[in-house]
């Protein structure tokens, strides 16, 4: 596996409320966990929410996902646990009320990719030079795009594009999107927060990937693109190449 992650505060914000994780779990079938989260809520709360959501998901998987077979169930439960944790902390801690976060998390093992998703961060799959979006935005604008009322470019400029219909940690119980995809050698997974997708269109992401010889620099390259266009939000990009051989040594 070849992967890169870049997370940048952007050009406008003062703090980075995005959080990410890319690690191999040592339990069960030893899947790789990839996650990005975009926190919301003023004064540190956004940072706390995104971090809490990702770390709680990871912690839950590390402690409980020993069985390994049922990746979908494991990831769904982990996200539910993370939701409850963020919700509790928001409720119990002065100043954190109302905080929440997006969470797009994937578990990859062999040829399976299980994806959990809440909010407007995104996951894409690039296979044989073609881009496929794996997640639907849980936002007002996202719903409009899905209904065909808006195009992607228009959505990127829509003033209400930040209004989420669903976020992790804002309700005690949450319906999380869970999906499983078959992956194979050579596939590339891209996960990112809206700091990228509001400024860089999906076909541009694909172009960057197709024109890129080294995945290791891709994260930074995409972040630079977003920053060059104003960087009005935090930008986090996680790119992972699916493959058995590591370190570019594979045959």
């Amino acid at each position, binding site marked *: *596996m*070849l*992967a*890169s*992650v870049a997370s940048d505060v952007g050009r406008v914000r003062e703090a980075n409320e995005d959080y*990410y*994780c*890319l*690690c*191999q779990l*040592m339990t069960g079938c*030893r899947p*790789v966990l990839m996650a990005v989260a975009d926190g919301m809520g003023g004064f540190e709360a956004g940072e706390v929410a995104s971090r809490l959501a990702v770390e709680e998901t990871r912690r839950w998987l590390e402690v409980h996902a020993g069985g390994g077979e049922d990746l979908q169930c494991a990831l769904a439960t982990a996200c539910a646990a993370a939701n409850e944790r963020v919700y509790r902390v928001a409720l119990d801690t002065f100043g954190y009320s109302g905080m929440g976060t997006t969470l797009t998390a994937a578990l990859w093992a062999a040829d399976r990719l299980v994806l959990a998703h809440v909010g407007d961060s995104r996951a894409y799959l690039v296979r044989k030079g073609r881009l496929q979006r794996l997640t639907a935005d849980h936002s007002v604008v996202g719903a409009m795009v899905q209904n065909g009322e808006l195009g992607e470019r228009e959505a990127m400029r829509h003033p209400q594009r930040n209004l989420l219909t669903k976020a992790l940690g804002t309700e005690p119980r949450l319906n999380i999107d869970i999906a499983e995809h078959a992956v194979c050698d050579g596939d590339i997974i891209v996960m990112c927060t809206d700091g990228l997708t509001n400024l860089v269109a999906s076909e541009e992401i694909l172009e960057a990937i197709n024109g890129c010889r080294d995945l*290791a620099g891709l994260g930074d390259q995409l972040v630079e693109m977003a920053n060059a266009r104003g960087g009005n939000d935090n930008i986090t990009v996680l790119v*992972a190449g699916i493959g*058995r*051989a*590591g*370190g570019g*040594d*594979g*045959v």
Partner: protein
Amino acid sequence: MIGQKLGGRYELVAKIGGGGMALVYRAHDNVLNRPVAVKVLRPQFATDEDFLRRFRREAQAAASLSHQNIVSIYDVGNDGDTHYIVMELIDGRTLKERIQEGKPLPVVEALDIAYQICEALEHAHQNRIIHRDIKPHNIMLTRNSKVKVTDFGIARAMTSATLTHTGTIIGSVHYFSPEQARGGLTGAKSDLYSLGVVLYEMLTGTLPFQGESAVTIALKHMHERVVPPRSLNLTIPLDVDRLVMRALEKNQLERYASAGDMMADIGRCLAKVRAPAGAQIAPDPPGPSPLPPRRVEKSPPRATEARARTRSEPAPARPTEDEDEEELPVARRKTRPWVAVLLVLLVLSALGAAGAYLVWDWLNVPTLEVPDVTGMVYLQAQHVLRDRGLTAEQVANRYDDQVPANYVIEQIPEPGTLVRKGRSVKLVVSLGLPLAVVPDLRGVNERDANVRLISSGLALGNITYEYHPEIPEGAIISQSLPSGTRVGTGTLVDVRVSLGPEARVVVVPDFRGQQVNEVLQRLAGLHLQEGEVHQEYSDQPLGVVTRQLPEPGDEVLEGTEVELWYSKGPVTPPNQKTIRFLVPTDRDNDTAVVVEWILYDTAGASVIYKGVHMGGQEVTRTVRWYGAQALLQIKVGDRVWSEQILTPTP
């Protein structure tokens, strides 16, 4: 001694060998009229009565053994001072000579020899005879690859006294079991250990332990770990490696329980190694397709040839085949020219026959089944294929995380396919685990270490946390594998993560009774910080510390703030009044508010009460003030809610 007749019966013909203890002669038994071997004890032993008695007893016991893998003892006797043993004469050489040819023996040959030694040992052990001196010098290989073990029990006759001046001990100590080296009780399992050493030597061409003196070697047998034979010779299969290591266990309990046990295991390994070759013999008559009689005739010798080949190099079997080929043309040449016409006709027909034969031969190259060589070491696969008349061709190498390096991963054609003899089998050979380069993790945090490791095909292993004076909290101090190292993918890299500089604990001294200014100056030196400083009336002299927080003797972290109160002189009895305050209710917002009471009197301003309350709650406090009048200000949140002048009640 040549020409001498021992016991009036055994005529010594020639010296054929000798050890530290005896000389061996080829002799002729004049009574039974057969060739025998006679072992004559060296004269220095012939004077040791004690030794002679034991020597004879052991030889007689050994004579009771009758087994195809044990050199038979025919007679034990003496002719005057010449003591001798008469034995079966073996036409062959010792295993020592075979090993000294150089190169390690092929695995199959080594296992076959060990198997036969085991058979001999099993028989002896069942008859309660322990060999005690198993070594290649005592193992004979006959011309037809039969193993014969000799000198059963003789070692026992030797005492430590006799051993010292023989020199044989130097050779034997290499094969000594730890218990023998220690001088402890020896038993059947000691023989199995020695056999393990012999097998080790056959497989690797070297001895498990080397040393300058017998003592060093003996000590090594007792204490040092054996280098697994497979690490010296990659063609040794894992099972065989395990077998040898088990025989070489220092603890007798860990070794094979018996020679039979070990024999069974060797047999299993042998079957595994031979499996491809054995499978070749079975499908020899390939169905009803008629083969020319010439070839059918040849198949029986081929079966024996396959057997012979497993024991020695493939070479010796080949010449017979070539001789066969040679004979035919010779026979044809015998056709004598009677008449010219006849000759021409004959030549023509011969040519035609030869041509027809050639075409026929070309069309009928024997087909054979491709053996399964996947999972074998490449060298072994090469052998197996060559033995079958196929050639191995290494067409590719590939990293593989399942198959270790040098093992065959894939083959084309697949096993079981029928192909012509001589065809090449393409092999894909493993390069082992794909290698990954360990990235530099120092200074990065745990999360980014994960990213870097995954990108390199590795993963994060154990994390230990520790204090570090320079490296900031959360950053990695060091990693278990240095950056730049090439390791197999999936390797776990352990890291040590800094907890930052160690937080040291300070015991807070008692500042009470000291001047506040002096105390404040001392705080920095004590690694404590200045906190809030308050004044209060007290009986203490002016400027003296009256109270402190944390209290004296408390253990606190470095840098903790210390709050101090100091005296502003003696007290005059204060005026006092009880004040009630109803916390106002906010119409829109039912949240808690901070209520603060501030008293302005002759002592200055001081917060006398601070608390969080819900609207509607009542706060009652007795307020004490100095001087005639005081002002009480009550704040709710940031707003001053009320102010009242306090005067003493009459």
